[in-house]
C-alpha cells in the first residue's frame, strides 16, 4: 500500500514516548530497582599491557556485606566481541584459550565484586589485589605495524586486524594524464559519544528461569548472543530488555555491563544492579577511530580526476570491536563520491594498547571524507575552479562504477544533492556554471568569513557480506474491522524516535489509523532479531520487514483468522566482502547521499572558528516523520561541529586524561550555529520501504571538511588535523603571516 491521502507516512506524528520524557516518568536503566537487589562494581585493568599472574580476592570476599567476587575462573567461555571474539570477559589466569590472562588496555575487566550495597562493592574492589607481569606496550598504530612492535593477540602476528586493498586501472597512465596533483595528510583523533545516560543495568532471573538483563543497547539479540556465548547457555535461557535508552550513537553497540551482570545474576540467582558514573562511561566504552590518511590525487586542467592514491591507517585499540568494518567503510569512502578509473588504496586496522575504537555515527566515513573532500577542495583551489563545479564534474551518478569495480546500487542522487545544496545556500548558476557568492566581510578587522562545501555518501544497512536481516511481527485484532494492531519488533529506540516511525509504517502498511497501533518492542522474549539501531538501517530494514509482515497478516485477516498473526524476516540483496587483492566487491545494497555548505567566521587573532550557518542537503528517499527527521539532521550537525572544532579526547600511554564532561567538552546551546537549514530531498531508493533511505548518520559526514574548506576560503590556510582548535588555526595562520598582533 503506498503513501496516499490519509497516510501517516511523512506526517510529523508526535513521538509516542514524549509524554513520559517531559514528565520524568520514563525510566532508564539506572532508574529501575528490584527489591533485594545486590550491587556490582568492576575491577578494571591497572596496566596498558600485562599478563595477569594472579588475582587475590580473599580480602575482598572477607569484607562484611560482600556476596561474591568473580574472576576469570568463573566465566564459562571467557571471550566476547561483536565481530571477532578477541576480548576476555574477565582477564586472568586459568583459561583454556590462549591470551585470556592478558590485559591489553585500561578498559579490560579483571574482576567484579557483588555486595549488599554499592559502597561495600566499591570497597571490595579496592581490596582486590591483582599481580601483573608487565608486557611492552604500543600506543601508535603505525608503530604497531612495525616488525619490532609487541604482538597483542596470539593469532594476529602483525597486529593488523584488517587489511584491505583496491587496485584498479593504470596508475602510471593516471598520473601522466594529470595536469595537477595534490597531496595531503589528514589526521583525526578519538571522539567520545557522550550520550547523556551513563551505562547502567539490572540482571535478574525472570519467571521463566531466564537470566535477564535490563540495559541500554543498540541490538537486543546481539547482546543476548554475546551473553549466552560467554555463559555457555542455550539462547532461550538469556533475555535482554531495553527500557528507555539515553542516547547511543554507536557507543552502545558493544558490550559494557551486559555480560558481567548476567554472569553474576545467573550464578547468584539474585538481582544485581550496576550504575556507572560519567568517568567510568568515558574510560570504559570504545571511541571513534583515530585515522590517518595520506592522499595523492591528480586531475586534468578541466578538473577531471585521473588518479587517486590513498593510505588509510586506523587505530583499532586493544580489541577489534567493529574496527574491521569501520576501516572497511573508510576504505570505501576515502575516494569520495567521485568516479575515477585509476585508483590504488591501502587500508589497515591496527591493534594498539589504546582504548578500543568502534562504532560511532558515520562509521569511518567522517574520517575518510575529511581526506577525500579535503583533496577535492585542494584540487579546486589549485585549478581555480568553483568547489561545486569540480564536484559535479566528477560526481558519481546513476550507473557509476565505484572504486570497488561494481556499480553503485540504483538510485544514485549525488549530483542532485550537490546541486540542491549549492542552490539552497550560496551558489548561483550562470554562464560559467555554478559560482559561490562570497560572504559579506565583517566590520571587525580581526574577523574573516568564508564558505565551504563538502559531500559524501554512506551505506544503509550492514555491509561486506554480513548476513543482514530484520524481523517484524504483527497481530491484527477485531472482528468486522481491524480494531487493534500489535506490532512486535526488537528495534532499539535510542532516542532517534524509531518506535514512533515503526508504528507509522505499520499503520500505513495496514491502512489503519495510527492510534490503533500498539508496539511491543525491544525484548528478546517477544521478538525475533531486528538487527541493530545503527548503520542508518532501522527505518529501511524495519519498514521492509513490517511491510512483509503486514501483507501476510492481512492475507490471514482476509481468510477470517482472528486474531490474524504473522511475522516476517526481511533479507535485503546480498553483499560481498572486498577481494583481498583488488578490492572488487558488492559492498552494500543501498546508500544515502548528503552535502553541506557552511559559513564560518575566523578570528585571525585568536584562531577561534565560529560556525554561523549550515545548509544540509540530505536525500532521505522518503520522509516518514519530518519533525523527527529534521531533529536527526540538527543533532548530527551539532555532534559533527563538536567533532570538527572542540572535542578533544586526550590519551597518554593508553590512559584517558580527560574523562569528565568538564574536561571533554561537547557543544552547548551557546556553541551551536544559530541557523541550520535542512534541505530534505526525496529521490526514492528502489528497494527502500516507501522509497525511504537511511539518514541518521549522513548529516554528520561532511561537516568537518566543509568547515575546513570555509576556513581556507576565509584565511587561505588549510587545517587537516581534527579537531580544528583555536591553537591549531593560529599556528597555521601565523605560519602564513596572518593575524600577528
Amino acid at each position, binding site marked *: 500500500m503506498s503513501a496516499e491521502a490519509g497516510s501517516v507516512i511523512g506526517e510529523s506524528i508526535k513521538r509516542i514516548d514524549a509524554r513520559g520524557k517531559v514528565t520524568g516518568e520514563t525510566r532508564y536503566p539506572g532508574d529501575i530497582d528490584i527489591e533485594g537487589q545486590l550491587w556490582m562494581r568492576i575491577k578494571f585493568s591497572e596496566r596498558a599491557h600485562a599478563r595477569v599472574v594472579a588475582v587475590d580476592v580473599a580480602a575482598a570476599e572477607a569484607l562484611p556485606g560482600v556476596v561474591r567476587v568473580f574472576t576469570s575462573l568463573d566465566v564459562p567461555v571467557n571471550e566476547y566481541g561483536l565481530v571477532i571474539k578477541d576480548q576476555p570477559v574477565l582477564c586472568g589466569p586459568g583459561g583454556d584459550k590462549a591470551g585470556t590472562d592478558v590485559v591489553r588496555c585500561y578498559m579490560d575487566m579483571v574482576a567484579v565484586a557483588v555486595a549488599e550495597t554499592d559502597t561495600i562493592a566499591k570497597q571490595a574492589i579496592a581490596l582486590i589485589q591483582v599481580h601483573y607481569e608487565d608486557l611492552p606496550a604500543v600506543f601508535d598504530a603505525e608503530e604497531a605495524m612495525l616488525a619490532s612492535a609487541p604482538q597483542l593477540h596470539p593469532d594476529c602476528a602483525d597486529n593488523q586486524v584488517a587489511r584491505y586493498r583496491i587496485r584498479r586501472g593504470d596508475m602510471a597512465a593516471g598520473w601522466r594524464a594529470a595536469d595537477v596533483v595534490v597531496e595531503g595528510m589528514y589526521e583525526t583523533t578519538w571522539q567520545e559519544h557522550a550520550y547523556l545516560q551513563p551505562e547502567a543495568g539490572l540482571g535478574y532471573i525472570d519467571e521463566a528461569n531466564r537470566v535477564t538483563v535490563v540495559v541500554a543497547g543498540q541490538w537486543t539479540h546481539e547482546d543476548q548472543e554475546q551473553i549466552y556465548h560467554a555463559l555457555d547457555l542455550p539462547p532461550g535461557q538469556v533475555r535482554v530488555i531495553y527500557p528507555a535508552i539515553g542516547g547511543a550513537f554507536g557507543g552502545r553497540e558493544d558490550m559494557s555491563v551486559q555480560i558481567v551482570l548476567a554472569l553474576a545474576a545467573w550464578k547468584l540467582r539474585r538481582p544485581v544492579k550496576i550504575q556507572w558514573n560519567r568517568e567510568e562511561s568515558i574510560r570504559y566504552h570504545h571511541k571513534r577511530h583515530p585515522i590517518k590518511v595520506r592522499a595523492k590525487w591528480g586531475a586534468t586542467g578541466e578538473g577531471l580526476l585521473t588518479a587517486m592514491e590513498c593510505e588509510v591507517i586506523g587505530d583499532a585499540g586493544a580489541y577489534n570491536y567493529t574496527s574491521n568494518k569501520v576501516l572497511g567503510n573508510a576504505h570505501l569512502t576515502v575516494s569520495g563520491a567521485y568516479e575515477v578509473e585509476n585508483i590504488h588504496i591501502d587500508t589497515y586496522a591496527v591493534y594498539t594498547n589504546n582504548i578500543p575504537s568502534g562504532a560511532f555515527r558515520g562509521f569511518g566515513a567522517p574520517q575518510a571524507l575529511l581526506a577525500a573532500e579535503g583533496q577535492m577542495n585542494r584540487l579546486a583551489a589549485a585549478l581555480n575552479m568553483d568547489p561545486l563545479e569540480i564536484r559535479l564534474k566528477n560526481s558519481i551518478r546513476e550507473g557509476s562504477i565505484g572504486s570497488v569495480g561494481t556499480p553503485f546500487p540504483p538510485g544514485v542522487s549525488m549530483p542532485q544533492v550537490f546541486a540542491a545544496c549549492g542552490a539552497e545556500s550560496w551558489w548561483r548558476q550562470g554562464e560559467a556554471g555554478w559560482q559561490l557568492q562570497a560572504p559579506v566581510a565583517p566590520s571587525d578587522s580581526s574577523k574573516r568569513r568564508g564558505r565551504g562545501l563538502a559531500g559524501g555518501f554512506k551505506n544503509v544497512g550492514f555491509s561486506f557480506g554480513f548476513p543482514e536481516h530484520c524481523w517484524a511481527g504483527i497481530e491484527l485484532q477485531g472482528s468486522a474491522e481491524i480494531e487493534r494492531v500489535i506490532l512486535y519488533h526488537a528495534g532499539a529506540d535510542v532516542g532517534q524516535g524509531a518506535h514512533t516511525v515503526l508504528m507509522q509504517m505499520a499503520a500505513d502498511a495496514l491502512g489503519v489509523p495510527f492510534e490503533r497501533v500498539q508496539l511491543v518492542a525491544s525484548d528478546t522474549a517477544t521478538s525475533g532479531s531486528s538487527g541493530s539501531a545503527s548503520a542508518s538501517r532501522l527505518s529501511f530494514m524495519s519498514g521492509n520487514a513490517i511491510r512483509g509482515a503486514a501483507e501476510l497478516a492481512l492475507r490471514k485477516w482476509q481468510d477470517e483468522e482472528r486474531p490474524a498473526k504473522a511475522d516476517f524476516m526481511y533479507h535485503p540483496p546480498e553483499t560481498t566482502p572486498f577481494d583481498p587483492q583488488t578490492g572488487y566487491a558488492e559492498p552494500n545494497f543501498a546508500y544515502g547521499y548528503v552535502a553541506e555548505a557552511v559559513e564560518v567566521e575566523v578570528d585571525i587573532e585568536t584562531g577561534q572558528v565560529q560556525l554561523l550557518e549550515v545548509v544540509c542537503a540530505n536525500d532521505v528517499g522518503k520522509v516518514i516523520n519530518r519533525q523527527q527527521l529534521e531533529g536527526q539532521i540538527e543533532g548530527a550537525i551539532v555532534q559533527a561541529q563538536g567533532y570538527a572544532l572542540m572535542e578533544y579526547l586526550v590519551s597518554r600511554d593508553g590512559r584517558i586524561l580527560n574523562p569528565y564532561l568538564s574536561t571533554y567538552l561537547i557543544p552547548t546551546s551557546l556553541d551551536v550555529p544559530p541557523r541550520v537549514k535542512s534541505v530534505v530531498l526525496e529521490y526514492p531508493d528502489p528497494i527502500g520501504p516507501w522509497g525511504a533511505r537511511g539518514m541518521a548518520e549522513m548529516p554528520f559526514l561532511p561537516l568537518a571538511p566543509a568547515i575546513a574548506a570555509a576556513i581556507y576560503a576565509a584565511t587561505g590556510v588549510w587545517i587537516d588535523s581534527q579537531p580544528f582548535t583555536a591553537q591549531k588555526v*593560529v599556528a597555521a595562520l601565523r605560519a602564513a603571516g596572518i593575524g600577528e*598582533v
Partner: protein
Amino acid sequence: MWPQQFDYQRADSVESALAAIGDNGKFIAGGHSLLPAMKLRLSTPDQLVDISRIDALRGITNGNGNLSIGGAATHAEIAASAAVGAACPALAQACGMVGDQAVRNFGTLGGNIAHADPASDPPTALVACGATIHIQGVDGSRSVSAQDFFVDLFETDLQDGELITSISLPDCSDCQCAYVKLPHPASRYAIVGVAVCLKMDGDTCAQADVAVGGATVKAVKCAGAAAALVGSSLDDAALSAAAAALSDDIGDWLTGDVAYPEAYRSAMAGVFLKRAISAASG
C-alpha cells in the same frame, strides 16, 4: 559519585562557625567549588561548617568610596548588583561569567577565591581592581590584598580555620575597568582572562592596573604592562609595548594543556589585553 564521609553542621554566626571548625574542617557556603573537589576526592575534609545562612556574610554595600561584598554573596547576586555594576563593572562582568546560571545561583565569591581555580574569572578582576580580602580566624581578623592572597595553583594565603568574611574594593566609578576572556568552548572556563582598570586624564592614561588569569596558575598582577600604558594615549604603539611587557609579567606563571599550550595562552594574553582596554574605554 559520593564524597568521603564527614560531619556537617550549620553555623548561625561567624563566631560559632570559627568555633566549630576542626583541624581538618572546611567552611561551605554554596559548595560549588568545594563539592566537586570532594567528589573527586581532591579534598577530603572530615567536617563541613555551613556558613551560607549567616546574614553578616551576605551583604553588598557601597559607602565612603568602598565597595564591600560579603564572602557568602553569590555570583548571581554580585552580577546583578547595581552597586557592583557602578563601582566595579569588571567584577560584575567576571561574576556573570562564572559557570552557568545554576552555578551562579549558589556559588559564592568567598568560596570561589578560597578555591583559587586558575581558570576562574573573579580572581583576575579582583587583582586588577585592587581588592582586599578580609579574613577572620579564632585569633582575630586580618586583611590581605588580592594580589598577595593568590599564592599559586589552587593555593592562597588563607590558613586552616580562617574564614573569608568579605571582599572590599575601592569604588572606581571614576575609572574604567573591564574583564574579558577567551573562553574554552563549551565549559567557558578562561583559557585567558584579562582585567584592566584605567584612570584617564583627558586622553592620557594616568593610572593603570592589569591582571591576567586562565593562562597562569593564579591571577597575576602585571606591573610591566601597566607601566607601558601609563602616560600613553593608549595608542597602538603603547598597546604593543604593553602586550610585550605582559608576556614578561606572566612568564613565570604560565600554564597550559594539550589543546591550549603555554605559548598559545601567552600570545592570547596580549590579544586580550587589547580587547580589555577597548572594552574598558568603550
